[in-house]
């Protein structure tokens, strides 16, 4: 069982407590993974017989922005 416990905050130094503890994700990696995902989705759409739907989604710009939920 993993217990969730809030990290202690040093109230004498709130600035330090709000500093990021990890480096932000490299955007380039995410873009590469997104491109890889789309390539796989397109290939699978072809197998499923839904290539036209995928192409229409692409034309509508559904894949122009990486959704926040994409990790």
């Amino acid at each position, binding site marked *: *069982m993993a217990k969730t416990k809030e990290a202690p905050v040093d109230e004498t130094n709130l600035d330090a407590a709000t500093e990021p503890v990890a480096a932000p994700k490299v955007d380039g990696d995410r873009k590469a993974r997104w491109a890889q995902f789309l390539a796989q*989705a397109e290939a*699978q759409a072809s197998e499923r017989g*839904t290539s036209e739907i995928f192409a229409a989604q692409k034309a509508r710009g559904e894949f122009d922005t990486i959704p926040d939920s994409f990790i």
Partner: protein
Amino acid sequence: MATFNTQNSVSFALRHKYFQASLQQAIRNQLVSSDITKVDTSNLKTIENPYISTDGTATTQAVAGTYSVSAMATTEDSLKVTDEIIVPTHIFDFEAKTANFDLFADFLDNMSYQVRYNWDKYVLNALLSQATGTYTTPAGGFTTPANIQKIIGDLLGKVAGYANGIGNNPFLVVESTDVTGFIQMAMSSGFNYADAALNNGFAGNIGGVDVYVIRGGTFVTASMGSQSFTNSGHRLFGLKGLAVSANPGGFTYDEKMVSGKTGREVVAYGYVGAKIWAVHAGLFVNITLA
């Protein structure tokens, strides 16, 4: 010593009670895939369902007694179970013995739900990704009350006229963010229909279409197991009982002793696959929200 008569004191001298006998859990989502598909739990990796891909050619002609032979053909179609859903955890002996709750029972209940929910989410996304029918809603989608009746009518038109058409229990799966349009439409319809919507919170059947509501974000643009889905912003319409969802052997629960740890490792898991057979793919509609 605890200090009484302050808001912040907590004392074992004062009475506390547990609100319920089980651990509290987050509200669970409605699961709908087993209502709209045939669920196959047989222990099989692949389910075959070949179909006639070139129909026989019927000719209407003046009586002559002669004919030309035309070829017919069959094509393989199959559902392959390629993915699994696993939820593991570990309950240490000291946790199980000293907890105020039955951790094994409560955690197992939660883990079973997590497997079941992810199974449901996978099936819904798989079906939507295989639907070959297409429809784009009027601007505003389902959130605009005036659109609902047109959308329902348009969707029914896509399956009308087939033997497996309207009479075969059409369904529509929308997300919770769409509900406002349905409620407003129902409430403005008056009398019994309005009362039903008000009393029950949601009118589940409109124009013969069973409307299922799932939480927002269930249709995803993401990978689930081996499958890549691009379903965010889309909804699913189809006919009940034509698609198959596979869960070979049902869901399994296992607990085991592991080296280096007291207590038990607990894991719940299940296998998943889903398929709209090729001949029915057009009866399932990938709805794009405008």
